[in-house]
């Protein structure tokens, strides 16, 4: 499994709870793609967000995000450095 980082930016401050709810509703889709949500980092102005998932590959995360209508800028696979 890979660590997939998803970057998002928003023109107006995001309602994090609404976004999270959208992801929760699509939990079945994430599960089908074997995606596990790990954590989110949100900027103080709530315009930038980084979400970290565990998934087979980055494409699975992109596909699921598009399916659920959750906007993102980039999704890429990363490695955690010690």
């Amino acid at each position: 499994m890979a660590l997939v980082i998803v970057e998002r930016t928003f023109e107006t401050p995001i309602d994090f709870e609404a976004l999270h709810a959208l992801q929760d509703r699509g939990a079945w889709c994430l599960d089908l793609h074997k995606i596990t949500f790990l954590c989110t980092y949100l900027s103080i102005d709530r315009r930038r967000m980084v979400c970290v998932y565990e998934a087979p590959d980055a494409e699975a995360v992109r596909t699921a995000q598009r399916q659920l209508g959750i906007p993102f800028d980039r999704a890429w696979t990363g490695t955690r450095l010690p």
Partner: protein
Amino acid sequence: MAHDPMTVRVLGELAVVRGKRRLPLPQSKKTRALLAYLVVSGRPHRRERLCSLLWDVTDDPRGALRWSLSKLRRVVDQPGVRRLCTDRDLVVFDHTAVAVDVLAVARELADGCEGVPTDRLVQLEAEFRGEFLEGLELPDFFEFQSWCVAEREQARLLHARLLETLVDRLREQPEEALRRARQLVDIDPLNEAARVRLVRLLANAGRIAEARQQGEAGLRLFRELGSAGSAEVQRAYQEVLAGAGVPPLPESGRTNTTAAAAPVREVLAATLGANTCGGGARTLIGRTEELRTLHETLDAVMRARRARAVLLTGEPGVGKTRVLRAVAEQVRQRGGTVLEGPAYELERNRPYGPWIDALRCLPAVSVGDTIGADLAPLLPEFGPGPPAGHSRERLFGAVVEVVAARVHTAPPVLIVLDDVQWLDDASLELLHYVMRMNRHRPLLVALAARSGEVSDNASLDRALRALGRLEVLDAISVLPLSKDDTAALVREENPDLDPDEVFAQCGGNPLFALELARSRRYSRSGPSPTLVEIVRDRVARLSSEEADVLRWGAVLGPAFRVPVVCTLTRLVSEHVLDVLERIQRHGLVREASAGGDAYRFAHDVVRNVVYADISAPRRRLMHHRVATTLRAEPGERAATATDVAHHAALAGNAALAADACVAAGRHCLRLFAVREAETLARQGLHFAEQLPEPDRVPLTLELLHISTTARKPPDIDAIAAQVQHLAERALDLGRLEHARFGFNLLSHLRWEGGNCAEAREQMMRAELVSRASDAPERITAMGDAARCLAMLERDLGKAEALAREAQARGERIGIEPVAVPLALGLLCVHAGQLDEAAALLARTRALAAREQDHVVEFQALERVVMLELQRGQLAEARRLSVELVRLGTKVREGSEAPFARALEALCRYAAGDTAATEALGASLDALRSADAKYRLGYVLTRAAGIDVERGDTRTARARATEALAAARALDLTSEIVLAEIALLRAATARDDGRALASYRRDVERRACSQLSAEARAAVCQMSAPAARRAPMRPGTARRRRYGVGDR
């Protein structure tokens, strides 16, 4: 040897009489309830049935049943006579030579009262000593309670029939008729005819004032209960009273529903002042030994700075509470902190109730913001609300912090928990935690319990043993007073009494002694009254208004808030306080805490007597009013949810009770009180079963959610099946929110049960239902789900079903979500129906282009390219891949662009274009960077096939190995097989027998799973002998060697 006949009396307090002797019964309520149930039901019962009737699943019910039966045998069995007959499975009470009052009366009156002589009716009437199983309430055990309520109602109706007949027959004896008429109104107060008859009899007997009182009381009752019929009663009363020459009744009583009532606390403070002790403080008599032990313990706690707990046990009324109060006073005088919270029998489902009351003794300002926020679930007045991630550990930690802070600022700290035999499980867990975490602090926890009832609370038993293991618990038995001490007590109350006679009657029980001293009924010559009779007599001396307020108090519980009483009685607060003050002077109630707005009964015997004297129908109506009143209270009080559930259950209003159990259960879960939540859920399910389906289904789902959240069900499959049925029914009933809720719950249960595939399906159903607020959304959701499944090659049957249903529904309302033809197209590709697939993918492209959905348009076109490659139509594939490259540039982020370039390069590579090698390599690198394993693997596998054809087995093996790893990462069976076949072919080409065998075995193993048509064709190709392999012909849909087309 002749045995004395035995009588079991259930009309009134449960009693067993042998000869003329009343036998002492076990103190445990459940044990007595068991006896009553066996005797009255008169038939064998399975042990499991009795266990579920009276014991919690988690409390070793079979062990508790055996223990209770052993206690009962000592009462009912005699030498040579076994009345409790048991075997491994069944328990039955043998009625031979046993008379049971209610059964005897019912037998004689089975054909009505008409044929029974009057003398005999009078004798039968004397059997009714009180309500059926008076005082034996087990509200937490609703099956027993329901049975008891039903039997009580039967007995009441029997009694009412008997009394009606006697009133008629005894017309010539007015006093006797009047007595029965009064009784009839008492037990059936809503019987208008009975009340009118009583008023008439009183008027005829010249008792005008009483006739008027009865009329007023009846009208007030109907007004209070909002019951119909008051107009009829009013008219009848006026006629009767006019006939007697009495002025008509006023239109309204002393109620004033619109007057603005002053805040109760202010009025209370003004009239009674602060620090008033309810009922009058009385000097503690005796108890020297107990107090000495407690003071020594307190000193030791202070000296050694080590926490201890002390458990006082004793019979009811022996003075445990009085001793606790004396110790509390001592601690206050030392400048210490006292936190007091009694447990109540009726509040066992109110989690942390006594702790809430105890912590309320502290001023809110003394608790900091952080701790206040953590305590907010229990005490909203302490803070704004718990932070996210609040847990039981934080809640418990906050209580420990509060205690520690008080130890620092005002030691010693005394926590008093009274009547712990009724302590709820959550409170017990908190108690243990507080003791454990404060072991090295000067903390004394004083507990009081009724001996004999500790065993009824298995959780308390466990908690006490745990405290024992911590070596922090001491026990003190509070024994009855000595003769001298009893004499001193009695002399204080009534110096004219002979204290020796009183001691002989009360046996040193202080409560009984005091009641005897106050009672006017006490007489040296007459029969000794029981404690209950004495209290009843005192209550009967109250005015009707005082009795009304007291009755509402009794219905509310052992303690009651004045504002609620004001609402229920429709009296202003000043007036209610006035009445309560008078009742307080009778010693029947006292303030619950100084400066508060609540009162409590002086002893639960008082409350039980008042409550028992309310007729069952009236009780139900009163509980209903209480439930609706509490539910309408603004703001959320910790007690309210469980209180509403309790009163709604006693009102017998199944809908209100089930709904209240949901709210109360959720409240308990929020407080991490899981056992209470589970009990409430079980209660709620019992009530929900009585409702019609449209109401029953959603409530049952919510209650099952609470129950399964509180405790993992032992039989997950059974519960899951039940939830599935309910979710489907909710869908049929159009209750979409509950259907979604149900499918989500089902998914969770399947996860718990390890059935992941089923869990995923139910999650998807939940999502589909959740989008069903309008049909287009739901149809789109179904199409999306189908596409998802098809792309991942999962549950293809399900995918097709969803896609077909979405297609059919869409056609009905004239919409065509783009995901539907895409899903169907992917399924056709998988099945090898390439022509149909091409048409569907073309349709998808058109729809997507119209909607400017470049991603879906790309997905459709890429599949068309792949389809053409599968067909061997290389030129067409290449043409389309050029278009795909153009489309790929429109998709902002992802692997679309590099995949399009890879497909285009693959087509040229397959055509022998050497320049394509570098382009292919570059696009594969880009796919690796994008981490798009499916697309990467697809290109690698097809390229490997081309490499094998060209004899470049080394490159083929490298590419196929990477493709296999990618396919395995995604668990795509068809792609795994195709990659392995590529490896197989490479191994065959270089004559690598070992690798050949390994790959062949794996391919054969996977050949039975649901492969795509392309993969199946490759498997067949692999299996056919080389000489018989048919030459490739372009244009055939099946049995094609992939990747190599016509040149």
